[in-house]
């Protein structure tokens, strides 16, 4: 059987793995399409060829995040294929044959997803235009599609396809067969360069904005800038500070077998999702700041609110992919624990604790800034209490939902194989 037929056969057999990858591509494509149309919508006074306004920059940011989401979905898809790639390589397939195997599958999925994405994007675009024209009192064709926007969307998506193709081909080339075979089963601690900065420095950086929030002028931009100082602290805490705290907690949990293991797993998960968590935390803080800045400007407020919602959704799904990827390497650990005498309900309790703590970190850091930030504006009467609560719930609820999904997938992956 040639590579082409084998590739298609495996694609058919692995429909579930391909479905979620395809879904991510559909979503990413439709978002890119909608936002490029917004950037070049003549009825809104926007143009790709002219100097960009703040909202156009925002739309560009959304497009970048949508592309990143597609990349995460792709790496998740490829990671589920390591066994197939390894077996093909061991059977004598050349690097080109293996690359061809991946390319065929990728092109089939993209060939189906991208047109569907454009189609759904066209429908979304109509509703998007409907709402934005209504909020700006613009009377125009809601089915308007900018030719330049369409061309730019196509260019970005084609670039994405080429980049992912090269990455996938390179993955098979540079990864050894033994590594491919063990990839799905091994928990490998990522080696990090030793950091000489004392941990207390990061805690101070994180706490400085909290103190300053009570002192600074009631200017959203000042809050955002001050928060950026704190983000450096958060990065350091995610990288090293929390690990040290976890090690300390582990020592005091020697008698609590579930907590001991859960804390250990948490430190692994924090290291692998640290960058993503930083981006989501920074995005939440930035967008809340932008929303407050535009609170009296309906024209821009709508797009900022919509962008906020989309960013939360995209980042939550990216983190979900990453966490599912990370937790799937835990099977060996849980099998050992089962052999040592842990019951299945104890193993589930460990997984539950780990996911709760991980998502607790994701919620804790931005909330600690945003609650203080919003409280000051609410007290000053610049933001309604209900609106502030809605802004907080707008990220808390999606993150809690993805936490539930992460736990169920984690549990199903592990328990089914013990």
């Amino acid at each position, binding site marked *: 059987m040639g590579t082409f037929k084998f590739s298609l056969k495996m694609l058919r057999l692995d429909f579930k793995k391909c479905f979620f990858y395809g879904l991510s591509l559909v979503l990413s494509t439709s978002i890119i399409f909608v936002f490029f149309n917004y950037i070049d919508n003549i009825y809104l006074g926007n143009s790709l060829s002219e100097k960009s306004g703040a909202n156009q920059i925002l739309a560009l940011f959304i497009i970048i995040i949508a592309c990143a989401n597609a990349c995460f979905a792709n790496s998740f898809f490829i990671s589920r294929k390591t066994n197939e790639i390894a077996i093909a390589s061991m059977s004598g397939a050349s690097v080109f044959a293996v690359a061809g195997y991946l390319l065929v599958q990728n092109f089939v999925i993209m060939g189906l997803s991208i047109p569907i994405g454009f189609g759904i994007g066209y429908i979304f675009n109509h509703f998007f235009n409907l709402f934005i024209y209504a909020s700006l009192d613009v009377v125009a064709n809601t089915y308007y599609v900018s030719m330049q926007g369409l061309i730019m969307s196509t260019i970005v998506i084609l670039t994405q396809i080429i980049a992912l193709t090269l990455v996938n081909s390179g993955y098979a080339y540079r990864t050894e067969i033994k590594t491919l075979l063990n990839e799905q089963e091994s928990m490998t601690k990522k080696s990090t360069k030793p950091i000489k900065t004392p941990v207390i420095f990061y805690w101070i950086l994180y706490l400085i904005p909290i103190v300053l929030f009570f002192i600074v002028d009631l200017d959203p931009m000042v809050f955002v800038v001050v928060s950026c100082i704190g983000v450096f602290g958060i990065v350091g805490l995610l990288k090293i500070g929390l690990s040290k705290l976890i090690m300390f907690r582990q020592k005091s949990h*020697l*008698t609590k077998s579930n907590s*001991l*293991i859960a804390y*250990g797993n948490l430190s692994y998960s924090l290291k692998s999702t640290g960058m993503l968590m930083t981006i989501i935390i920074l995005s939440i803080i930035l967008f809340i700041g932008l929303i407050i800045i535009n609170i009296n400007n309906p024209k821009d407020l709508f797009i900022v609110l919509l962008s906020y919602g989309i960013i939360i959704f995209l980042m939550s799904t990216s983190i979900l992919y990453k966490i599912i990827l990370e937790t799937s390497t835990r099977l060996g*650990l849980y099998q050992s*624990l089962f*052999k*040592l*005498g842990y019951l299945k309900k104890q193993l589930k309790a460990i997984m539950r604790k780990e996911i709760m703590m991980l998502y607790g970190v994701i919620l804790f850091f931005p909330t600690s800034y945003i609650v203080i930030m919003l409280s000051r504006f609410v007290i000053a009467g610049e933001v309604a209490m209900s609106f502030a609560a809605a802004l907080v719930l707008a990220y808390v609820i999606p993150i809690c939902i993805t936490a539930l999904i992460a736990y169920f997938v984690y549990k199903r992956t592990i328990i089914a194989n013990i």
Partner: protein
Amino acid sequence: MDEVLKATGVEKTYGLHTKQPFKALKGIDLTINENDFICIMGPSGSGKSTFINVISTIDNPTGGRVVIGGQDVTEMTEEQLGRFKYENLGFIFQDFNLIGSLTISENIAVPLSLSHKSKQEIIQDVEAVAKKLGIDHLLHKYPEECSGGQRQRAAIARALVNQPKLIVADEPTGNLDSENSHEILRLFKQLNDEDGVTILMVTHDSMIASYSKKLLFIKDGELETTIEKLNKTQKEYYYEIVDANSKESQELFQ
């Protein structure tokens, strides 16, 4: 000598309700007494790993009985079995299976934390067993910071810390070089001779098997040969093991 384990007519069939069931174990009997050091060998696919998994409660037999310390493990609920494992059995795996995010000390303490012992008792027991195995200087380190031999010693310490009735070792030297392998087996022999630890080991290596007191050779799911060391030297015992292992190959030349 007290009986530690008695397996009677142990059977294991895979795909029991399918069109092609496969009988991996065909009714094996085994009695392990206190202070025994038994080794199981056999060709690939003979059922030795299946047998050891079944009698050590990791897997359920489809026929027969397994009684450990006077308790029939085939009749236990999951909860009873879990408790039974950490109280009565110690496992040593080929790839150590230490938890990378815990220190050596915390890894050794895992069975004790399941037993709900106090923190002080846990620390004392861990330090005692670590000192016995010569790894007390490694307690604060992580598994990735230790050599293969050190990690396996840590795994042995974890298996011993609860003073189990039976230690089950599945290819304990599979990932070690020859020097470390012999060091580990000398340690097993010392624990068996001096501390009366009962050991059941699976290996494919005749030299490693020669450290045991009794060898069971399994082939095609059945117990084919039993060799006891008794008063033989290790060298004589080793040659007898090699002979038993190569019997099938020798028959090809006849």
